[in-house]
């Protein structure tokens, strides 16, 4: 199972409290994780990536194994630690404050 950590507001929308565990068929990439996530939690569609273009929303970033994957191609395979579930795939909101 793939572990996904959502920002607090998306956990509220999805009615989950902690990490989300999802089954991903085929190669584990950002796209396949998000496809599986939106299939299990359809209320999240449009909140992480655009409904039509599937582009990442500008104030969100994706992290895996302490690396920023936000600007990687969506079909690039993710590290084995994500695939094994040793590390979670992080969806993080940009920090706004000052």
């Amino acid at each position: 199972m793939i572990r996904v950590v959502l920002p607090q507001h998306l956990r509220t929308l999805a009615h989950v409290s902690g990490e989300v565990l999802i089954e991903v068929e085929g190669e584990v990439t950002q796209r396949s994780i998000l496809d599986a996530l939106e299939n299990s939690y359809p209320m999240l569609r449009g909140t992480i990536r655009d409904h039509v273009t599937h582009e990442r929303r500008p104030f969100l970033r994706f992290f895996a194994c302490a690396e920023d994957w936000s600007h990687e191609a969506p079909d690039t395979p993710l590290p084995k630690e994500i695939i094994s579930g040793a590390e979670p795939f992080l969806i993080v909101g940009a920090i706004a404050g000052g």
Partner: protein
Amino acid sequence: MSKVRVLVGTRKGAFILSSDGKREKWEVSGPHFAGWEIYHVKGSPADPNRLYASQSSGWFGQIIQRSDDGGKTWHQPGVAADQPPAEGGRPAGESNKFVYDASGETGKPLTTHQWYDGTQHPWEFKRVWHLEPSLTEPDIVFAGIEDAALFRSTDGGQSWHELPGLRGNDTGPRWQPGAGGMCLHTIILDPSNPKRMFIAISAAGAFRTDDGGKTWKPINRGLKSQYIPDPNAEVGHCVHHVAMHGARPNTLFMQKHWDVMRSDDAGDNWREVSGNLPTDFGFVIDVHAHEPETIYVVPIKSDSEHFPLEGKLRVYRSRTGGNEWEPLTKGLPQSDCYVNVLRDAMAVDSLDSCGVYFGTTGGQVYASADAGNNWAPIVRDLPAVLSVEVQTLP
């Protein structure tokens, strides 16, 4: 005994304020959707327990919420948390999918509009400013969005489809955003004619359809705006809000960027009725529930100083349909008050003694149970109020 329910959208969540017909003691529920911007919450006239809310965020985009029990519980239409997967898989989850209809069959090309610097800029969806439920069908609701376009749902908000004739109007390339964005913020349904609808866009102006939304015409003749190259232009006027009394659907009242205006021919011609107002800049305007010639505005100092004149929060009332205005001050702060009252943040109830309500950017929601003569705050310390709507319940 009758009850009232005040639906308040704020920068950080929605609140529901409830009282009996006396409107003296209030229960406060919320924040609903804490931390999110709630641009608008409105109930269906056909089913008062059906509420729609526009929830948005710079991070996560647009969400539509619906309640079927008067605001006790909420869900995203079509994707309720306890809804089992339908045969064939999960529901599509399209209640927040607002895609301009640029198809060859039903749509209009996705062109450009004027940007702040006069260049052309592509149409881009940003958020839903206003939700207007049908007068007769709880599952039909209209959405006014930024960048300006009109959408309709016929399935209780589960899916949305643009009425592209408005955005495709010939004048579209000349529409431009106001300071708050190019928002379609006002939707008025004519109770006497289901084919007729009025909308207003900042900063394009007012428009009317007489064929159920297929075609639209600008209705801005008589508006004068010194801040645009041609003050009498067909479009480009920064209309802040429009109000109508259901018994007089041909009479419209408008608070423009500057000027309070009136039309008695469904918007074909407008005339200024600012009269003796101390300043005719402002955002809100509304009409008394039982007196179609009694109207309310909250004058704001200027376009660069969005607060009341002299630090005195005053509602102005005209009982003559404009021109002659009286200040209403009892119960409102008359010193050191520098809040704003935004365009969708005033509403009236329809009890025998008409109640008037408005919310401020300082987080106060004021109520008057006697048509504006006396005011008292229902709440004082909410986040900045974006919208106020009222339901009068049996």
